[in-house]
């Protein structure tokens, strides 16, 4: 597809369960970002991948959060033992080069933890 694709678009899970969110960046985009957006708030940086460099994980809120990326393709964000405060929209974005801003966002995954 032409844009950044995220799946699922919506996910409802019970507290304590693990969830996995997926992001397919635009082909050829070497940089990939995950952000979290709580209701009525701005975007909170989670993690940044650039090519084969070590990812910048400085925004991950706890060790329950982890993310992987295979080469310059798909990324998965995993949240273990979900809590209600994890409920948010998780947005993925990609850009052509590392050091450049995320110009292309996906539509996000809306996560609801009950």
């Amino acid at each position, binding site marked *: 597809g032409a844009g950044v694709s995220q799946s699922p678009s919506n996910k409802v899970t019970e507290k304590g369960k693990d969830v996995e969110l997926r992001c397919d960046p635009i082909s050829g985009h070497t940089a990939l970002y995950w*952000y979290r957006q709580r209701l009525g708030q*701005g*975007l909170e940086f989670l993690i940044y991948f650039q090519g084969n460099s070590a990812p*910048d994980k400085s925004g991950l809120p706890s060790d329950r959060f982890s993310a992987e990326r295979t080469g310059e393709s798909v990324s998965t964000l995993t949240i273990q033992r979900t809590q209600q405060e994890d409920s948010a929209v998780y*947005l993925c974005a990609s850009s052509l080069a*590392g050091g450049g*801003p995320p110009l292309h966002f996906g539509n*996000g995954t809306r996560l609801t933890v009950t």
Partner: protein
Amino acid sequence: EDKVVQSPLSLVVHEGDTVTLNCSYEVTNFRSLLWYKQEKKAPTFLFMLTSSGIEKKSGRLSSILDKKELSSILNITATQTGDSAIYLCAVLSAGGTSYGKLTFGQGTILTVHP
């Protein structure tokens, strides 16, 4: 810690009005400031500003950066109902272990009534 603050947090106007949205920042190693428009899902890119005092314009929207005041404004003239959205300001900073980390403000919710 990098910080981006937007004001006002929300704004309600009528069609035809002109609005000015504000963004101020405190970051180390500033590289550029970006504006995004977020309607229902994915934020869409509006402007990237790197140099002070140079206005960027796109139709009824314009923006300018003041690096001395560490701030930017986004102007929308002759507003239309389609301008209703959340407007996000983000600052790109460099340094540390990676480039490309955007810090977002809380956003300004603009509502334009017919």
